[in-house]
């Protein structure tokens, strides 16, 4: 699996997913900083939005990101028991599954919405998670939510013809 995009013409054809990553300030954001200081290389498709704790990540933010064109949303927080604020990440966990099920019902595949616990020292795992998610979302293709929202329905004739 190529770790990064290359500037070649062939690669330009490739679908480049856009992934919004909500990272907590104390663990996952620092893991991403560490990935930088240790010069790891990973896919450039994620855009990090920093919050103090994963507990701040309102499910509305996730939906908003999808609605605004994200192909995937990644939530990164401290491992269970390690939240800088003791238990914010448990609240995140409690919401995650129901939100994922809701998204599924709305046609958004599980691979597009991930929750990962990544501690401040886990730069390698962060790289793996990002690369893996980018590949999986790339395989799923663009989310394309905008298009059908206003689209005109099939007319009666067409429906009848099916």
């Amino acid at each position, binding site marked *: 699996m190529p770790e*990064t*995009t*290359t*500037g070649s013409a062939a690669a330009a054809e490739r679908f480049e997913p*856009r992934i*919004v990553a909500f990272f907590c300030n*104390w*663990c996952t*954001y*620092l893991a*991403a*900083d560490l*990935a*930088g*200081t240790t*010069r*790891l*290389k*990973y896919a*450039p498709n994620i*855009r*990090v*939005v*920093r*919050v*103090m*704790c994963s*507990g*701040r*990540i*309102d*499910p*509305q*933010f996730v939906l*908003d*990101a999808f609605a*605004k*064109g*994200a192909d995937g949303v990644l939530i990164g927080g401290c491992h269970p*028991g*390690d*939240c*800088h*604020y*003791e*238990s*914010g990440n448990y*609240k995140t966990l409690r919401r995650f599954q129901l939100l994922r099920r809701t998204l599924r019902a709305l046609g958004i595949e599980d691979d597009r919405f991930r929750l990962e616990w990544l*501690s*401040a*020292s886990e730069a390698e795992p962060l790289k793996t998670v990002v690369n893996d998610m980018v590949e999986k979302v790339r395989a799923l293709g663009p989310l394309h939510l905008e298009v059908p929202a206003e689209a005109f329905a099939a007319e009666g004739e067409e429906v009848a013809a099916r």
Partner: protein
Amino acid sequence: MPTPEHGDANAVRIGVYICHCGTNIAGTVDVHAVAEHAGTLPGVVVAREYKYMCSDPGQELIKADIREHRLDRIVVASCSPHLHEKTFRGAVADGGVNPFHFQMVNIREHVSWVHPDKRAGTEKADALVRAAVSRVRHHKPLETRRVPVRSDVLVVGGGIAGIHAALTLADAGKHVTLVEREPTIGGHMAMFDKTFPTLDCAACILTPKMTAVKAHPNITLWAYAEVQAVSGYVGNFTVTVKRKPRYVRDDVCVGCQECIDACVYKVGKEPDAFNLGMSKRKPIYLPFPQAVPQVVTIDPESCIEFKSGKCKKTCVEACADRHAIDFTQQERIETIEVGTILLTTGFKVFDAKRLPSYGYGTYPNVYTALEVERLLNASGPTAGEMVLRDGRTPRTVGIIHCIGSRDEHTNKHCSRVCCMYALKLAHLVQERTGAEVYDFYIDMRTPGKGFEEFYNRVAEEGVHFIRGKVADVYPTAEQDGRLILQAEDTLLGNVRRIPVDMVILAVGLEAQADAEDVRRTFNITCGTGGWFTERHPKLAPVATFTDGVWIAGACQGPKDIPDTVAQAGAAAGEALALINAGHIELEPNTAYIVAADCSGCKTCVPMCPYKAIGFDAEQGKAAINEVLCKGCGTCVSVCPSGSARQNLFEDDEIYAEIGGVLAHA
């Protein structure tokens, strides 16, 4: 809502600064293009690129632009906010704009250093800058909160690091509580005979400091105690400490040790932990003669009175009218309030049994270096005599470096002190026994002050250095207790088999087994291997990401005594600086509830780990105590009616950021 000094939110005047960071950013991000893109964004009045934004001229640039262009919002795209957010907020404030009308973009750690493709990196930098520009427009002026800092300090771990830090703080007039897990302070250093490279006698330099701790009016020493829980925040921590029962009253015991002599056990039966099991101790004991505090301890596991209730209690008789022995003593839980915390919990040595090919635990004459430290120590199991487990004095000794260090299968790190202590042991063993010493090293690492000189000295003394990794340790054909060390000599290029009487394994340093628990208790982070993580590897080596908690000594990573002491002094100094300031400025990122909006549904109330949210039953509204709120924002995300909000992380700020990263350029 319009803010009078800056006009309404739509009429903001934003300045954007893209840092080159030398070539760190400019090498892989087209900084010029990013600045140009920023210039096209709504509200942006100036967009510039500059070599080093954090430098004085970089900061001056911001201030000058604020004056000239009447900027009221600033965005800097450079390194991680964890590094320079404070710097730039300071510059913005100096320029006369509220410091929180600022947003930082991380295009170094999160872009240039991780994405080598310039096109993709530039595109990402553009997106992140766009996000910051759309976000900053919503920023409200805020003020930092000031909280007072208590002057009392907690030091956890009484090795040389904790001792030095406690004395420094106490000498500066601050009250220190020193909590040590073992019955005595001293840590590993107390086990050594001499210390490299100067060969000072460890006890001679350590013991006076240990007694000074005990005697210091500003130090409360709780040995045989452990921290159970910590709550609160910088300046105001509440700490509960569990003090284990010694069954001896520390306020009356004078350490005369008459009880030990009088014990019904005429000789010790229990392996003596301080001597690493190489000697036996009685149920009532003092770990070593210079132990501090000079208070004996009863081990209920082996004491007859505890096991049967039928002991003659000759110890009690011997203690006579001092009445120090108290079999009914209970564990005590103490609660203290401190403003700052220093963690100096040290290290543990690598367990040599994990590498069976070196024969530790199988062949009696294989020792760890720490055991040899005890054998050489005058108060050790052999009173300083180098005698082997089989009673012989070694004529030939092999020392093997890097056991459990620099190895894929155990620890990748270099333990930093082993080469030097191996040289020390080589010297001491040769000096005490006249034995031939063979020293097997992979690389000889002696980069400290006086270290290389010490190596040369030991080499001149006739120690045989063999550059090569020992592959195997096995008994001689004669089965005479001797062992053969087989190694490839990488300098000579041949395989050498050297028979020796004694093998010394230079075991590496590892994080304490309970480092994870300790880190959790104090809410700090551990890196790989369990070493506590410093806030910045270069610029904040003893601070942690938790304000008010510092680390020093070997708990942060392997290091020798001089480095440990330097760190302990540094941590004490940083704590003192905070205590003397008397207060700390906290991020104003607290949450608040708009009373008129709150329906009183109470969803937020149980969310807060700090019980910062109270419910006013009369008003039927929830309210946040700003002093207790630490700003996680969990209550904000759960409020089903959007009535809880968070400064610096307001909903509209985050939505704007999401929109910004996703907007097409």
